[in-house]
Structures are given as structure tokens and as C-alpha cells.
């Protein structure tokens, strides 16, 4: 009670002998890479040297240099091959590690599943399903019975009132409105519409087609 702070739980990463050997392989690969790098650097130098010798017209020496260059190239190829092999091996190892890991996990998973399944048997499940089905049927019946029973009688007078409301709120199309209009108004409207037609004719003459 009342201690300062709990010790941090730092998990130590374990390094096995296998890890160390794997590291050795990787270091080997690295040193091969470094070797390759060195060789290709000196290769570039030799190419430059060869060019210079050719420019200075020293054919014999240029030949020698070229031969050295060829040998170097072969060494580089060999080193590349070796490195490639190593990389293969390393990736194989990695893959195998993952595979074993996968199998182990699968095994644990199956075991887990089996332990869960032990808690239930198939007969129990079938019995359970039947019970559920019966329960659902019963429930449906109850709803039906409850739904068909109604305390309320629909009144006919209520329906009439509803129709009246509807007509008042949404009146029908105004065919009757035409008869209330006076004849004078009709004539003026006609004259106006005639003059409008003339204007539009004149306009069409004046405006370019």
C-alpha cells in the first residue's frame, strides 16, 4: 500500500544460439556485398586506366589492363552468385520459420476449438432448436389474436366529415370561373390579343431573318 511506483515490466528479448548462427549468415552476406562493391570500384578504375592507355597509344599495356578487368568481372560474377545463394538460403530459412510458426499456431487453434466444442453436444443443440421454433410459433399466434380484436367501431358520419374536409382544402378544377366573367372584358382581351399579333408580325418583318 502506498508504494511509489510499480517496476516497469520490461521483457527481455531472448537470443538463442540459432539466432546467432543466423546472424553469422547475414554477416557473411554483408561481407560478400562489401567485397562486390570493392571489386566493382576497382573495375571502374581499370576501365578508366584502359581508356587512358588507349589514348596514349600504349596498346600492350591496355591489353594487360583489359585482361585484368575481365578477371575482375568474373570474380564479381562469382561473388554475386555466392551472395545470391546465400540470400536464397536465408529466405528459405525465414519461410521455414514462418511455416513452423504457422503449424504451431494452427495446432493451438485446433486444440482451442476442440476444448470449446466439448462444452456442447449435437443432441443438445437439436433440442434447443426445436424449443426455439415452438416458442416463435406461439409468439406469432399471440400477435395474431391480439391484432384481430378491436374495441373501436368506425362511424359513417365520420367518413362524410372527412370527405368534406378534403374538398374544402383541395378545390376541383375551375370550369365555373369562365361564366362569371363580363363580355366587355372578353372583347378588350380579344382586341389586345389582336394588336399583340400585329406587333409580332411587324417585328418579324423588321428583324433580320
Amino acid at each position, binding site marked *: 500500500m502506498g508504494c511509489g511506483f510499480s517496476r516497469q515490466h520490461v521483457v527481455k528479448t531472448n537470443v538463442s544460439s540459432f539466432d546467432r548462427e543466423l*546472424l*553469422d549468415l*547475414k554477416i557473411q552476406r554483408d561481407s560478400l556485398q562489401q567485397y562486390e562493391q570493392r571489386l566493382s570500384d576497382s573495375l571502374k578504375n581499370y576501365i578508366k586506366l584502359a581508356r587512358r592507355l588507349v589514348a596514349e597509344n600504349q596498346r600492350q599495356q591496355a591489353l594487360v589492363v583489359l585482361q585484368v578487368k575481365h578477371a575482375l568481372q568474373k570474380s564479381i560474377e562469382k561473388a554475386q552468385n555466392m551472395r545470391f545463394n546465400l540470400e536464397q538460403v536465408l529466405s528459405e530459412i525465414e519461410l521455414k520459420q514462418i511455416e513452423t510458426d504457422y503449424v504451431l499456431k494452427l495446432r493451438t487453434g485446433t486444440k482451442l476449438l476442440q476444448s470449446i466444442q466439448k462444452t456442447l453436444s449435437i443432441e443438445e443443440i437439436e433440442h434447443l432448436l426445436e424449443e426455439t421454433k415452438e416458442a416463435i410459433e406461439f409468439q406469432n399466434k399471440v400477435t395474431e389474436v391480439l391484432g384481430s380484436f378491436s374495441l373501436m367501431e368506425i362511424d359513417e358520419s365520420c367518413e362524410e366529415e372527412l370527405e368534406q374536409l378534403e374538398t374544402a382544402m383541395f378545390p376541383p378544377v375551375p370550369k365555373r370561373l369562365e361564366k362569371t366573367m363580363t363580355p366587355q372584358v372578353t372583347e378588350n382581351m380579344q382586341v389586345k390579343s389582336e394588336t399583340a399579333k400585329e406587333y409580332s408580325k411587324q417585328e418579324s418583318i423588321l428583324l433580320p431573318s
Partner: protein
Amino acid sequence: MTVFRYPPFYSYPPSFTLQPVKATREKQLKLWCDLVLSYCKHYKIFKLSVTDSANSSLFANTAIDRKLSLAAVEEVFSRLVSMGYGEWLNKEANVCLIYWRRPYEWAEIIYDWVERSGKRKSILTFYEIRFSEDTAEFEFHGIDPELLLRSLQVLESQGKCAVFEGKTNDDLGVKFR
């Protein structure tokens, strides 16, 4: 790599004389420390030798014909180390690691890369971390091995990895959890 742009105080002649007045000297040393850190960051320099750098353009400005005396350079280095931005690798040879990023910052960057690139639960060599093409665009590419070791040790203390040697090799590698 672009040329490093020196700050204005580098062209101010009194900057190259260690000031006797305490307040001024404090300011002066701070500016020099900042310069060293930004210079090293720009050129990705992880360690400096006191004697070599004293004659380099870092502490000598030929344009105004002034350079910092060796004593003053040593003062700058001790200030860096005392503030935690440097560490003496070899006191006799006067070689100093420059922490323009501190080890715990490097640790964070490296661990971030490890997680993102899916390198967890794998073994990496120091050479791989420093020089492989995977890390070419990261800041820690080409990092000094001593500094890398210190950064990984920070991660080790947090339980995130383990640094170890090979069975037949002295070279170091690291295993991430």
C-alpha cells in the same frame, strides 16, 4: 549536397575570440554549439575530431581571416558534451560523437522503420541497417556504428530488441521482438 549556409555571426570577427565577459561568452558559445549541430546535420557528420575540425572551415572563416583558437574549440566541445549534444568517444584522441539527433530520437526513427517495413521478429545486421538500399531514403542511412549501438541500446532498455554478436563473428546484429 547543397553548400552549408553559415549564420551571420560567422562573419562577425569577435565571434572568433573567446569573450572574457561571462554573459557575452555564454551567448557566443551557444551560437557556436548551434552552428556545429546544424553543420553536422547538413553534411551528415556523426563524429568530429577536435584538432581536425579546429583547422576546418567549420571553425575558421578565411573570408574575414579569423579562426577560433584551439582552446576555444575545446570549450565549444565541452559545452556540447555537457549539454548532452555530444559524447567523448576517445578523450585522448579528442574524438567526439555529435548528437544533432540524440540517441533516443534515432531509436524512435529506427523502430518506426522496423515496424513499418515489417522487420519485426527478424534479425538484422548493423551493416544492413546502415547501408542497405532499403534504408537509403532514411536519415539513419550511413549512421556512425557507435551511435547506432547507443540508439539500439535505448531500444534494448525498453525491451524492444536485443543486440548481440554472431557465434563466429565479432560483428553486431540486432533482433527485434
